[in-house]
């Protein structure tokens, strides 16, 4: 079956521009997660949804970052007034339930480059 998909796969933005990154989770998956992965580093948690509810946004680095999942399926991560330090791969993951040990399945990521 289809896995987690993300679009666009690559995004180049000029500093100060707004960007929107899309995540399509596996159909029926309740939980959705966003991570940021800097070059050569492990993914770092940004935010977590259970259905449409954003239960944890403690990892969002600033108020320029905003995520939504209005219908409990597709999610969008928006970054306003992008800065060079926002350059990274943004990964989306989904899991079937909300359990602590539910396996998270990752998408291919969106590589954001801010010039």
């Amino acid at each position, binding site marked *: 079956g289809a896995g987690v998909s993300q679009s666009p796969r690559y995004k180049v933005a000029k500093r100060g521009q707004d960007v929107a990154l899309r995540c399509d989770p596996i159909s029926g998956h309740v939980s959705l997660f966003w991570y940021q992965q800097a070059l050569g580093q*492990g*993914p*770092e*948690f940004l935010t*977590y949804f259970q259905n449409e509810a954003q239960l944890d946004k403690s990892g969002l680095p600033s108020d320029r970052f905003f995520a939504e999942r209005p219908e409990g399926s597709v999610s969008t991560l928006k970054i306003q007034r992008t800065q060079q330090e926002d350059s990274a791969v943004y990964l989306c993951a989904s899991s079937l339930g909300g359990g602590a*040990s539910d396996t*998270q399945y*990752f998408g*291919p*990521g969106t590589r954001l480059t801010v010039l």
Partner: protein
Amino acid sequence: GESVGLHLPTLSVQEGDNSIINCAYSNSASDYFIWYKQESGKGPQFIIDIRSNMDKRQGQRVTVLLNKTVKHLSLQIAATQPGDSAVYFCAEKARGNTPLVFGKGTRLSVIA
């Protein structure tokens, strides 16, 4: 803050040999541990997981060992193949709605 880390940043092994990738964690509240494989340009791929009430778990060609006494996790890959070349991350999670915490990763290179 507490974090998950790795002993070795790179590991080169001969095809057919066994590989061992190590990980140290510091959060004593961690209840669940996962190994992910990440190939270039792709997202992390789940390999195997283990709960804190277990010491060992085996999958196909992979084994995860957990030593809670010294807060150490390892991934063993039997008969390593060229397709195993990737970056491997350990991740840990505490109980409840807490996020996964990833280590920095170990790059495994398989020499044919």
